[in-house]
């Protein structure tokens, strides 16, 4: 028997490593595009804001105007509802602190109006709670 057969050794092909980095790359590109769209190209536009979102300087102007109107008209209910729009944590403190700043700046009329409104609101609080 002529045994010329040769052993054929088939070396198994190493399994092709399947990397999924392209998926991660795609997601990152997508997120980046999404953020560019939402933060730069079409950001949420605030056109109809409330007085609570005003900058501190504008809040002071708004608060001062409310106080001066109160000093002129004496309508405390309307002044209180307007002040509520500013969503101050402590309305009386905000009025008092601004009154002091106005006084320091020589704005006596404004300071008086702010202090008057602060004291009237403070005086009204026990009356409201006792009812």
């Amino acid at each position, binding site marked *: 028997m002529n045994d010329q057969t040769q052993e054929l050794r088939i070396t198994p092909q190493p399994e092709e490593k399947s990397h999924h980095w*392209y998926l991660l790359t795609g997601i990152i590109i997508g997120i980046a595009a999404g953020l560019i769209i939402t933060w730069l190209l079409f950001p949420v536009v605030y056109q109809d804001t409330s007085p609570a979102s005003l900058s501190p300087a*504008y809040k002071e102007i708004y608060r001062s105007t409310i106080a001066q109107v109160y000093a002129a008209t004496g309508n405390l209910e309307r002044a209180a509802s307007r002040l509520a729009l500013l969503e101050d944590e402590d309305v009386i403190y905000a009025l008092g602190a601004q009154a002091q700043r106005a006084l320091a700046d020589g704005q006596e009329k404004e300071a008086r109006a702010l202090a008057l409104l602060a004291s009237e609101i403070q005086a009204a609080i026990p009356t409201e709670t006792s009812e």
Partner: protein
Amino acid sequence: MSRRRRRYIFFFAAILIGLAIGVIYGWVVNPVVYKNTGMDTLRLDYKTDYVLMAAELYQSEGDLASALTRIAYIEASSPLAFVTTCIDYAEQHNYAREDIDIMWYLASDIDTALKATN
């Protein structure tokens, strides 16, 4: 489907998923927040109330320059048109007649002053 083609499909699907994540994050979860807005961004009803305040003070003080300065925080270029817009809003939303009249009084004096300067 060839492996290469499948990879392209998954790649673009991943971009779309990422885009959706980015849009939801940017518009819903963490949108651009304006904390320090100016008075010109106020909603029209708040603007109208502010104009009413300016008008109330004008009625009490009679100082048109101060009234215009107050209005200029919201609208500097055409105060008369702005006050008229606010009066229209007040009339449409059934503000008290006396409040509307106070605003008309201010608008009328602004108009007179503008005509005098032109």
